[in-house]
């Protein structure tokens, strides 16, 4: 008897595993572009993580005898003005760019959820907070980010801070819109009737329900943060290039040589474009699955 029960349990587990497999495959079939985006992204993250250990050359090693050489067997993406290997730099630069994207997305989501929840829930906070957000949104992203970099000074950390400030208003808007409809839901009334205070309602009932739209928005923010980092570097207000190659600053350094050494810009830009595209595709798919209504708002 006990043995039979064990068997059914094992069978049930097996069938659950099979169902999960099947439903993920179904999902992949329904959302082919999202699946492609996720796969490419996964590959890029993996490559970026192992890059420091496997790239053929030291990314920061200067070799004045091999300046601006075209792509070859020893330098796949060619070399830059200091004879550094563009392939090794691009592969290692991914770590910085992905770090910026991920940190900005997570921080902007955290601030967006907090501000959005407060703003959507308390009228007085709303009046002040949303005016500040509107004001920040009125300034073009690139210009605002550069202006912030002037105040903060050039460093990796400050690039992340500047882009978080630029992207938080958008996040807050999405969160606030959801909170405004959530606060009218019966389960919020129920919680209040049971004696829950504002803090508990916000933390336990409102914020968890914000996660779907915020995660979707988070992917778009990650993608745009990566581009903003590149623009900042390109305009000379980004991460100092000395020992932190990022896709943005590798291209910025190659800018003077497009005539004769296009590869210095071409390859990092191509990898950046592929990465941002796959994040955006993943975001689109995620949006369709998690929050179909959002399709009309973005």
């Amino acid at each position, binding site marked *: 008897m006990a043995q039979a029960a064990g068997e059914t349990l094992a069978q049930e587990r097996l069938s659950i595993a099979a169902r999960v497999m099947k439903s993920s495959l179904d999902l992949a079939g329904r959302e082919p572009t999202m699946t492609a985006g996720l796969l490419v992204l996964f590959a890029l993250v993996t490559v970026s993580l192992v890059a420091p250990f496997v790239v053929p050359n030291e990314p920061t090693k200067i070799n004045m005898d091999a300046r601006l050489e075209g792509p070859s067997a020893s330098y796949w993406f060619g070399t830059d003005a200091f004879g550094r290997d563009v392939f090794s730099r691009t592969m290692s630069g991914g770590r910085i760019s992905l770090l910026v994207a991920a940190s900005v997305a997570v921080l902007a989501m955290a601030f967006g959820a907090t501000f959005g929840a407060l703003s959507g829930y308390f009228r007085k906070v709303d009046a002040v907070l949303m005016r500040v957000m509107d004001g920040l949104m009125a300034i*073009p992203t690139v210009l605002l980010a550069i*202006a912030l970099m002037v105040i903060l000074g050039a460093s990796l950390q400050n690039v992340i801070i500047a882009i978080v400030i630029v992207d938080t208003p958008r996040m807050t808007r999405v969160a606030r819109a959801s909170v405004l409809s959530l606060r009218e839901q019966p389960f919020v009334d129920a919680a209040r009737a049971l004696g829950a205070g504002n803090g508990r309602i916000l933390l336990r009932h409102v914020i968890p329900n914000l996660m779907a739209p915020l995660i979707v928005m988070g992917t778009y923010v990650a*993608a745009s943060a990566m581009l903003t980092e590149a623009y900042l570097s390109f305009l000379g207000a980004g991460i100092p290039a000395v020992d932190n190659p990022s896709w943005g600053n590798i291209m910025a350094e190659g800018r003077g040589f497009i005539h004769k050494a296009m590869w210095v810009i071409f390859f990092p*830009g191509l990898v950046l474009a592929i990465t941002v595209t796959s994040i955006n595709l993943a975001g689109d798919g995620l949006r369709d699955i998690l929050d179909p209504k959002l399709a009309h708002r973005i």
Partner: protein
Amino acid sequence: MLAYIIRRLLTTIPVLVVVGLFTFFLLRLTPGDPAAVIAGNEATHEEYLEIRERLGLDAPLYVQLGKWAGRIVQGDFGTSIRSGKPVFDLVRGRIGPSVSLTIATELVAVLVAIPLGVLAAWKANSLIDRSVMVFAAVGFSVPIFWLGFIMIWVFGLWAFGLDNPILPVAGYVKIGDDLWEYVRHLILPAFSLGLVVIALIARMTRASVLEVLKEDYVRTARAKGIAEPAILIRHALRNASLPILTVVGLSLAGLLSGAVVTESVFAIPGLGRLAVEAIATRDYPIIQAMIILIGGFYVFINLAVDILYAFLDPRIRY
């Protein structure tokens, strides 16, 4: 209608105030004391104090803010630290190229994106639709300056080992000097800046046409035997035009952000380049003027779109 416009107009005031406050504090928060910079190392303490007084830096912050706001409202943006010229004159000289680039880009974007979006909606979920959508996703993701350099590389024929550009790859010609050259100089910048806008408008067009195609009157039109192109343009696109119009208007404001980058790539002497130059040389009065002007433009465009929206669709009253 008038009441709505006035109400909407009033909502712009707090936004402009926030932009103004941000700009004011941008200068105060920046490391470094302007008076010390102007005085230099040789100055005595008395000279330094005198400069501080002349610049009004010895007054309390709120007095400085009040005086500053008063000047800005009168259109006095001060003088450039570097060139000593009035900021207002410097900015005025840069407006032409930026406006030209913005209009050219928007024109290119609308002409490409709307047919693409309609096509994608018409053939929804087909290979064409998926391709347009992937193209749009790519359009959002390609760095503007990278695309610009690729275009320079290709159309400058450097990609083919030559050096005789078939299209101008840098600079700007005034419309009054030579109309043909004016247009030719805008082609590459407009396309490289336009890709993002094409993506944006194509997506919005697809979504709203798709919505309209489900309507009963479209089915009726089909049942009457009206040709598909006529249905798409007269019934679908016309009724889907409001959200498209909104996104066109908003992209106009967003273009200014991209123009900062594009003008730098194609050496166009516009507002964006002025801003970048000013940031590189820490020319704060110019940076302030740029943020206020562009922020103001953004607010104005938003206002115009909202009013136009209410005008075209009488059901809308917020």
